[in-house]
């Protein structure tokens, strides 16, 4: 779906922030977190179209929704994550639960169910995961058996157990993945159906405002018209079709929660005086705990926006891109939150300050909707194919593009990003020649390196124009400095880690070091401290102490 216009999107974000300011002060969130309590009233209010109608964002206009595009949903998810990741998950679960109907439903099913979700403000849950089936859904054990009447399949009896279902205990409607005689298939299950029973709300490490429960289905009768798409065996395809899109939402969670923690650290650092000056003026603090995280998170943002715009432009799938976005934003968000605790010292370690909760909450983004390790594997698989198909040109072409960009915009980080991409191309080619991808560790590590190089290139592209969308809160000088900091980090990591990877898996890596152009990577590190100084000053101006 195409995005909203920028003004409408701005108003949507303003309304959401204003609602949170009034109804979700941190004291309330902290108490709910402590009590492990799902704020049902708040969620119902957020779904109320007279108040916010947040669930309508996912639903096309013709079914009573507001037809938000991927870019809009990313911005809303980021804003939700800044409020509370548990509440964000409560909203996301409805988005996710609605997806199988959106993607695979017949026209009649969409008419019936999407209209119902929109009009009745239904909370939805997406029930795929089982104890022994997470990203490996093919192992699913929940069964859907035919109920035949008058020689026709009149319905199904579903039996099995689902695990870790967000909104599991509180949803009105469930989309449940079960093995039908024709293969994995999605079914619409209503809460009041006989034999359906949610279990207790889990006692989790974080996102404690999100209801998570197991589901027990004991011969639950579902009419045949509740089989999504009215065709068995399409379930896994339907699930995979939206990964590019749904993983982008979780990426936005990592971005939002990570930035929220980092912003709190930046504001705090201007008030805490140590050894005669504020922490915000000390490199030992800013260049370790603040600036690298800001650069990594903005790189992730650039990649999220790039992917969202492609999806809104009509491209489908983009599973590798969705995985890169999720991996980059959630891993970097998690690390930023970890260092935000460090940045606040003893205060950060108490529950009086939100960074402690954000750190507990954000960890889930590296786990749900595919763990970081599944992301590494997905990224490797997708791009390895491109490397082979292009006979090693995939990243060399991208590096050429960076060199061209550097020729016209010399300060956007394109030069170092190009070095990172060339190093990546060399490592991948060496892995092909020496058949190193027989080691699983090599493949997963390649996933990490690919994400690093591609996000550096994407950040350089985003920083080049000098005028940015309103999601970027920095002027060109600071934003470009952040891109350069990140591109240098990517180039260095690619060459050092890439070389170590090949050396660790084989005895022979002759020529790799030269192909990586190590002297140029080293030379490119010049100016790093000056750029970090510039970025630290810019962050202080942007996020002033309150």
């Amino acid at each position, binding site marked *: 779906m195409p995005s909203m216009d920028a*003004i*409408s999107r701005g*108003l949507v974000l*303003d309304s959401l922030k204003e609602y949170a300011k009034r109804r979700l002060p941190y004291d309330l969130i902290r108490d709910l977190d402590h009590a492990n309590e799902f704020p049902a009233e708040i969620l119902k209010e957020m779904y109320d179209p007279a108040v916010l109608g947040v669930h*309508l964002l996912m639903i096309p206009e013709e079914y009573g929704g*507001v037809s938000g595009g991927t870019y809009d949903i990313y911005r809303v998810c980021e804003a939700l994550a800044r409020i509370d990741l548990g509440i964000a998950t409560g909203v996301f679960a409805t988005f996710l639960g609605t997806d199988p109907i959106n993607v695979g439903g017949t026209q009649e099913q969409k008419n019936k169910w999407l209209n119902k979700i929109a009009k009745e403000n239904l909370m939805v849950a997406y029930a795929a995961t089982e104890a022994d089936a997470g990203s490996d859904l093919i192992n699913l054990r929940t069964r859907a058996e035919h109920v035949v009447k008058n020689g026709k399949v009149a319905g199904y009896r579903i039996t099995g157990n689902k695990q870790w279902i967000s909104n599991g205990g509180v949803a009105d409607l469930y989309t449940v993945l079960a093995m039908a005689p024709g293969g994995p298939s999605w079914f619409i299950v209503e809460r009041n159906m006989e034999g359906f029973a949610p279990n207790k709300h889990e006692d989790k490490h974080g996102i404690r405002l999100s209801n998570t429960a197991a589901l027990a289905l004991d011969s639950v009768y579902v009419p045949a018209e509740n089989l999504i798409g009215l065709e068995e065996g399409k379930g896994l395809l339907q699930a995979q079709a939206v990964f590019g899109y749904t993983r982008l939402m979780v990426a936005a969670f990592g971005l939002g929660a990570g930035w929220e923690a980092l912003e709190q650290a930046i504001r705090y650092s201007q008030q805490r005086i140590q050894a005669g000056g504020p922490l915000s003026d000390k490199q030992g603090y800013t260049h370790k705990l603040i600036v690298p995280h800001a650069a990594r998170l903005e790189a992730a943002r650039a990649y999220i926006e790039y992917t969202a715009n492609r999806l809104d432009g009509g491209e489908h799938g983009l599973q590798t891109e969705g995985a890169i976005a999720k991996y980059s934003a959630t891993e970097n968000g998690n690390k930023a939150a970890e260092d935000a605790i460090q940045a606040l010292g003893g205060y950060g370690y108490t529950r009086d300050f939100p960074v402690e909760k954000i750190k507990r909450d954000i960890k889930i983004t590296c786990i749900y909707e595919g763990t970081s390790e599944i992301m590494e594997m997905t990224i490797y698989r997708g791009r390895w194919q491109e490397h082979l198909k292009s006979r090693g040109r995939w990243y060399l072409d991208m590096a050429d593009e960076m060199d061209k960009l550097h020729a016209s915009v010399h300060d956007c980080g394109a030069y170092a990003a190009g070095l990172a991409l060339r190093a990546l191309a060399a490592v991948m080619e060496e892995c092909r020649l020496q058949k190193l991808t027989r080691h699983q560790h090599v493949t997963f590590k390649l996933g990490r390196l690919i994400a690093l190089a591609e996000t550096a290139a994407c950040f350089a592209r985003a920083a080049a124009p000098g005028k940015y969308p309103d999601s970027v809160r920095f002027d060109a000088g600071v934003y470009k400095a952040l891109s350069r900091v990140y591109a240098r980090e990517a180039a260095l990591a690619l060459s050092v880690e890439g070389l170590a990877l090949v050396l660790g898996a084989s005895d022979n890596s002759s020529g790799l070091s030269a192909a990586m152009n190590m002297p140029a990577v080293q030379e490119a590190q010049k100016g790093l401290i000056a750029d970090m100084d510039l970025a630290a000053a810019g962050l202080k101006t942007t996020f002033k102490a309150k």
Partner: protein
Amino acid sequence: MNIVVCVKQVPDSTEVKINPETGHLIRAGVPSIINPYDHAALENALKLKKTYGGRVTLISMGPPQARSVVQMGLALGADEGVLLSDMAFAGSDTWSTSYALAKGIAKIGKTDAIFCGMQAIDGDTAQTGPGIAQQLGIPQVTFCEHVDIDGKNFIARRHIDGGHEIVEARPPVLFTILVPKEFSPRCPSFPEIHGSVKKPYHVWTADDIGAEKHYLGLKGSPTQVSRIYPPPQREKAEMFSGSAHEAAEHILAIMRKGQFIAE
């Protein structure tokens, strides 16, 4: 009744800082909001529409991004929006702004009442509303806490020192409106924002409203701002308790010590 509400986009004053060296507002990264007084005026107009029917039209003047406040008003329930946007308007003072808005309102057509916020939180002049009434040659009722309709007339509760007065006015009339004490501004919901895009919205230039250019912009403005500066920071007040007599003695002692009065 047809009501026109004037709205202005202003920087969120809680976030605004002034560069002490240049005297300029630091606008970078400062969010823009609807002027809270205008928001109160809009809510008053929408309440009248809900109770008695009629039509609410918004008018604003500003750069293209000021569309945001007009669209927000449309999302909250107004029927039509107008933005006066033209480089010719840039730098207009309150007189020129009143002139342009009056021309715009005249183009909108039959108007029974014009609702303005009492003042804007960025300039704090409280001159634009009354200026529009003067330009249009219609009566004005300022400092209104609330405006209602009684038959064919408007009834305003007007704030005055130490109390209030009730004023009845025949249309056409202009009201400037205060922010009520317990005012909790509404935010539009997602579907309301989505629906607002389909409402009639017009961007009018100086030519569109038939404004004479020499009355517009910095050059057409009879007043000019020479400098903006933050007020000096006040020192912390000293608080003391005791009887009125003791307090007076204490204050006298401080004034003598500071040589504000003779010993």
